């Protein structure tokens, strides 16, 4: 009889593959020259992130990730690219490009350093698989946490978003000067 646990093995393989795809997709976002394909790579990356959330039993976050980012935000990106007519950008070496490469290299170096110096620790919190199941699903657990311990910050964030939305409407809808002229 075979000895290994097929379920765990499959899960580990799938996690690895999805993570690898996520990394490749994010590379595609910055390396691809056609804006439409960049946006598509970003969508692929977000779907991979949602799959990773799913593999770690965070169903609610996975669904929200897809609905908000892949479903709504990226559609607007594609919308704008389609309206502006995505042209392929010409690759030519310049000072800015070499600066950008230097910057990215520094960031990657920092990431590497921090990964080697201190090993990653699991986030300590009140929730693991058992407690989440006890509360009744990940959606409920997140709701309870969000609306009890983090209520003030949650409401502040929502007010911030509301202010931003009203600001956008004001900026795009009314120009300030014609309104004053009319008042004279």
């Amino acid at each position, binding site marked *: *009889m*075979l000895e290994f646990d*097929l379920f765990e093995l499959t899960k580990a393989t799938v996690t690895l593959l999805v993570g690898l795809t996520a990394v490749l997709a994010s590379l595609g976002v910055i390396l691809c020259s056609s804006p*439409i394909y960049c946006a*598509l790579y970003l*969508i692929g990356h977000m779907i991979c992130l949602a799959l990773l959330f799913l593999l770690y039993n965070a*169903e*609610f976050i996975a*669904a*929200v990730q*897809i*609905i908000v980012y*892949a*479903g*709504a935000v990226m*559609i*607007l990106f*594609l*919308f704008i*690219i*389609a*309206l502006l007519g995505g042209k392929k950008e010409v690759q030519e070496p310049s000072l800015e490009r070499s600066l950008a490469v230097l910057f990215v290299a520094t960031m990657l170096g920092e990431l590497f350093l921090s990964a080697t110096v201190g090993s990653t620790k699991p986030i300590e919190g009140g929730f693991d698989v058992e407690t989440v199941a006890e509360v009744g*699903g*990940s*959606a409920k657990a997140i709701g309870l946490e969000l609306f009890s311990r983090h209520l003030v910050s949650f409401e502040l964030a929502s007010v911030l978003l509301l202010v931003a939305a009203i600001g956008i409407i004001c900026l795009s809808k009314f120009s300030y000067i014609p309104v004053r002229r009319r008042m004279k």
Partner: protein
Amino acid sequence: MLDDVIDFLEPYTYLIIGSVKALIIAGALLGIVPALVWLERRLMGRFQVRLGPNRVGPFGLGQPISDSIKLLFKESIIQSSADKFLFHLAPAIVVFTAIVAFAVIPFGEPITVFGQEIGLWAANVDIGLLFVFAISGMGVYGMVLAGISSNNKYSLMGGLRSSAQMISYELTLGLAALSIIVLTGSLNLIDMVNSQNSYPNILIQPLAFLLFFIAGVAETNRAPFDLPEAEQELVAGFHTEYTGMKFAMFFMGEYINMVTMSALVTLLFLGGWNAYGIPVWPIIAFSGKVFFLLFVFIWLRSTFPRIRYDRLMTFGWKVLVPLSLLNLLITSVFVVL
């Protein structure tokens, strides 16, 4: 030898059952499309006082088969200015998301076969409703990509319209569903059906039902909200350049989405497979309700003219969204009190 195989497979029974269920559901969904096309053409004929297809086979039942064969053998034309990869990808996305979204739809109580309890659903996930919204929301990409990759201004307009329309009406759809979620206290579709054992939700949430159904018609791009493919203005919208089977795949997606939307309305508002005293099998009750809603979809198409695009947007944002917010507010107040 056979015993060894059975011993080896024993712990993975749930995997085998799951795969068989997935195959059956995907096959049935694909098979339902020609039937729906036939139904739509026959019913439209009746509504418009003409005959409809009646030459191929009894009642024209052979028509969908001959149509499918014709579409399969047609030459596939791709204009040279199109983006080949995206052009092929777009119809695949439409059909894929349509079938996957159906995966969490339950259509009956669990049945027992050979001592195994089998639920009549492909997957029973905790976040059922959100899953449907997430996956069907991804279906927009098929239309947008078809519009962009065709390199044609009519297709582009169709793609843009469809994305704007679907984003706008998704809001109403979600808010109307949210009032049912507030009532039930769960995102699980089976829990929702079980909470309607005594009476269906439509009796206490008629406004939410109306909003959900209108938004559902808009989400599936059906008339009177079929702006993305308005023939008189946009040739055929985002699928202008498509031929043969790829053209048919967009229609497969649309019809499967119609079935999914009808099933969702049934589960959320009409009590799912609860028959309320009428002695029929749960699955028959469920399919009856879904069939009736599909009939209404076709009825709407042959009754209402297409509405203008700016009116569509105004209607969505200034009428449906405030109404659904108000409905949600009132429902929440009643639930809390």
